[in-house]
């Protein structure tokens, strides 16, 4: 019996990964910005960062060269986004496929369960990897509604009160939004440069 592939299913197959890619890319960008912000305002997360040597670089990436971010632990144990170029990070958490990253960032699979399910490869110190997963857990507990956070972490922190959660989440969201707002003038400048270049070429 011959099996014919349906053009509809093949189109769907193409659209779903692109949507996943876009979603994962956006979420990884938001998570990176939120981690930077939370490292400045949350004592628990800051405490976890105390365990990293200053200068440690941590990368999260979708293989082979998909969405990614790299952060660096500063002297004061806050985080900063960095671009390492071709340099190897100290710790790299690599999702094997964008669909696996989608499971984690859509909170269908907790980071620890994804780790246990071999969805990712860790290159670097396993102690640092464990600590980084706890940083992600703390961030998710802070910024996600409790019902969603319960799916994303092994155990929701009992000591995190609703008032503290609301205040910190508000600050983190404001900082993330602010960081995107900061990008607007740069984006506008880039756009005007591009347009003027085109105008010059045409004339």
């Amino acid at each position, binding site marked *: 019996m011959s099996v014919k592939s349906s053009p509809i299913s093949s189109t769907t197959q193409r659209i779903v990964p692109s949507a996943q890619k876009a979603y994962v890319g956006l979420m990884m960008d938001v998570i990176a910005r939120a981690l930077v912000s939370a490292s400045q305002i949350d004592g628990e997360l800051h405490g976890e960062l105390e365990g990293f040597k200053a200068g440690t670089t941590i990368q999260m990436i979708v293989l082979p060269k998909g969405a990614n971010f790299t952060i660096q632990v500063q002297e004061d144990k806050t985080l900063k986004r960095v671009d390492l170029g071709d340099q190897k990070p100290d710790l790299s958490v690599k999702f094997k496929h964008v669909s696996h990253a989608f499971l984690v960032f859509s909170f269908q699979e907790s980071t*620890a369960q994804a780790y*246990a399910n071999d*969805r990712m490869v*860790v290159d670097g110190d*396993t102690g640092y*990897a*464990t600590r980084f997963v706890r940083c992600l857990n703390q961030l998710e507990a802070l910024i996600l509604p409790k019902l969603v956070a319960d799916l994303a972490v*092994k155990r929701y922190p009992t000591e995190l009160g609703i008032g503290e959660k609301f205040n910190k989440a508000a600050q983190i969201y404001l900082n993330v939004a602010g960081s995107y707002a900061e990008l607007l003038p740069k984006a506008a400048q880039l756009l005007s440069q591009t347009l003027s270049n085109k105008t010059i070429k045409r004339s």
Partner: protein
Amino acid sequence: MSKSYYEFFCPVKVVAGHMALEHIPFELAALGAKRPMIITDKGVRVNNLLVPIEAAFIDAESVISAIFDEVPPDSSLQTVRAAAQLYRENNCDAIIAVGGGSVIDTSKGVNILVSEGGDDLLKYSGAHNLPRPLKPFFVVPTTAGTGSEVTAVAVISDTEKSIKMPFASYYLMPNAAVLDPRMTQTLPPHITAMTAMDALTHAVEAYTCLAHNPISDAYATAAIKKISENLIFVLDNPKDANGRLELAQASTMAGIAFSNSMVGLVHSIGHATGAVAHLPHGLAMSLYLPYVLEYNIDTNGDRIADLLLYLAGAEVYAATPAKERALKAIQVIRNMRDTLYDRTKLPRTLQETGKVEKSQLAEIAKKAIDDGSIIYNPKEANLKDLKAILEKAWG
């Protein structure tokens, strides 16, 4: 609930049973190897454990090209380099590790250097950093506990730089694990007990932690059954070849289980205790196992309850109400430890070890929280939880 996704891999040929050592020359020849080097330690040599292996080669008109017997209790980069040099000087083409965890880890390190060339082991440290298969590598375990004969990992210390180098690669897995009861018949009772409890912990954590899967479950439960049915019998009958073989197989099966589903909090605290107070690994496993299971019980009590069947048998399992099975399983492990204490003085609490100070508990907890295996534990544990477990284990 069925497992949503898992991976399972074990390409190691298991050569097990009576006269298993006599199969080594044939198995090596099948891989095209003619000049193997044995890597071992002085203890193995002194206990004449190489004698049957050497005899097996002579009878098969094969040769052992070199023997390196200077592996210390903790593997080191310096030892790896020295053994690699001996391998090269004798133009060897395969490695046979005869020993426990340190000998096996050292041999894995030697195999990297003699296969890849050079002396820089650090270059290959980390996950999946080996580019190709290594030289033929056989392991003959002389303890029944570590399971290293079927794992893809090794840890080697650079004593000069005071760092531990972890290696993880499928290419580190031996071509064959040779289990012969003659190799464990002279193990003293307390070592037999400690290493069997190490294997039991591998199997219990493989079954109860986050990365368990249907195939690793089969290996883990079979290993638990073999240990609970044979450990006390072997202590009473140390020369019984069948009993020794059962424990050796259990250790290998537990190794196959945990190398695919990893381990959890017992190992996190055990590794930390080893680093802080130099408590032997098997002893730490035996000591912490019931306390960690009690900690996890409200998260995965159903999985712990399953273990009662393999720990105590069908009659006890059937006679125990379902909601009591998890606690009963932990009680059976506690009873097993009490028996081992009576027979071999294997400590059940940190206090009984006489090797750990109460003032060290905070440091142990701090180290344990960063151990890589903690991520696989079904229940999240923070520093406070770890200190509470350690306080209980103190006794």
